[in-house]
């Protein structure tokens, strides 16, 4: 899923300065799964914003909506009746959903209520960890199903750096596994350590954002 997290409340309050009627809109898909932008979070955040602004002497009316998927125009269209009643929109969907809303209601300022951070899974209750960086050149087949692009702090392609901690965690974070240690262990468990010996050449990053904004065209579907 696409993972996002709330921006600091003071930042949210500052962005809503001067607005009287604000539409707070969430999304019931990824950001609901990561407890940042679903219906529950919309309903939690609205009074927090209202009270926070009130403390600063600003009365604001917050209208709440949660779309099924904020990244689909059909669902965004559901906001067309309410939009004329507000002077700003705050979205707590991922950056994709936010942009669709901003594009559809171009006259209204759109404020991001969350920071979109990663493509991740819920590893445990209350813990989400990155899995993919959309690199455009998937190498999971060579790394026993573990992604070194998203999960190695240095996106190394040829094995662990010298910084793997003694307990097998990554040098940058004592709570994050060194993914290369896990790759090596998986290879070993399958008796295929030799598979990791081949030097993997420099990666072609051009099918990701590094090649310019991605544009996938499928003539057969047009």
């Amino acid at each position, binding site marked *: 899923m696409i993972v996002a997290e709330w921006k600091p409340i003071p930042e949210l309050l500052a962005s809503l300065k001067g607005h009287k009627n604000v539409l707070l809109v969430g999304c019931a898909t990824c950001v609901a799964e990561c407890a940042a932008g679903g219906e529950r979070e919309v309903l939690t955040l609205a009074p927090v914003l209202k009270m926070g602004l009130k403390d600063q002497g600003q009365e604001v009316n917050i209208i709440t909506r949660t779309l099924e998927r904020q990244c689909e125009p059909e669902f965004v269209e559901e906001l067309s009746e309410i939009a004329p009643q507000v002077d700003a929109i705050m979205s707590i969907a991922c950056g994709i959903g936010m942009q669709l809303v901003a594009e559809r209601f171009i006259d209204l300022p759109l404020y991001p209520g969350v920071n979109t951070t990663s493509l991740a899974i819920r590893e445990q209750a209350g813990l989400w960890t990155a899995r993919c960086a959309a690199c455009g050149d998937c190498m999971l087949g060579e790394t026993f199903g573990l992604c070194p692009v998203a999960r190695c*702090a*240095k*996106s190394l392609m040829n094995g662990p750096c010298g910084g*793997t901690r003694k307990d097998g965690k990554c040098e940058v974070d004592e709570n994050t596994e060194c993914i290369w240690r896990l790759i*090596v262990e998986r290879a070993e468990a399958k008796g295929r350590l030799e598979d990791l*010996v081949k030097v993997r050449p*420099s*990666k072609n990053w051009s099918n990701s954002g590094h090649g310019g904004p991605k544009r996938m065209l499928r003539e057969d579907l047009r």
Partner: protein
Amino acid sequence: MKTPVQTQLQQAIAAGRFALTLEIGPPQSPNPEPLRQKAALIKGLADGYNVTDNQTAVVRMSSIAASKIILDLGLEPVMQMVCRDRNRIAMQSDLLGASALGLKNVLALSGDHQKASAAGKLQGHPGAKNVYDIDSIQLIATIKGLRDDGRQEGGDPIAEPAPFFIGAAWTPLGTPRNFRVLRLAKKIAAGADFVQTQAVYDVPAFAAQVQKARDMGLTDKAAILAGIIVPRSAGMLSYMDRQVPGVEVPAELIARLKQAKDPKAEGIKVTVELIQAVREIPGVKGVHLQAIEAEELLPEIVKAAGLSPQDRG
């Protein structure tokens, strides 16, 4: 086609002399004077002097500029290059520039993550965007391409090869340990000519890893220089044992420094013994010696350890 390379370090290794490299960290300043002073202190001792590349992700004078400054003073630099800050375009451009300036030894490293920059007393740049377009092994292959294949990583030809003696780092006792010799094999397959290791204190454990490398024929293809860091206190050793990845310090050694009346002098004795011990390991072709924040001790240690130029064969 292999392009011939001549550096003092390469010649020492080729001649079967026991090689010695030391390290010089560039200043956090545009003033070359501190660098010149450090250089004067250790000139004439070693075959090569590693010049670090924004080590621990702290901004310092560039390793190319600092390398050129010490080259002009008669010290042969080993220019370090990390993959954190530059993409393959910038790195190759800097390599051509370095070659034009007369720099011939280059050591390819992944580099410390920028988060490390805020770990000490300094603020560093933990908010920086890192690059890691290529990793250290791909960098080695890229340098080899510039040297032996007369071509850039992307395939375009270069008019003249860049004659680099290519170095790599090795953490023989790192986690996961049974991959570390294979990782060395990858670096050598990619083109490393010499290898400097993480600090060695546990000589038998290190020797066992070198033995595995020897069994795979790796020590014939690249020269291993054992890393030695002069211990200054029991505290320093136990910190390294607990915290520094890939460094194992035997408990006896920590106890020995603890009991010593003069830990600094004892540290020098330990250093001399370590150097003598690694020198006995078949496949070890030299040492990479560091005296962190105590460079003034190096001339004495080098002499005591029998590493003066005339003692190294």
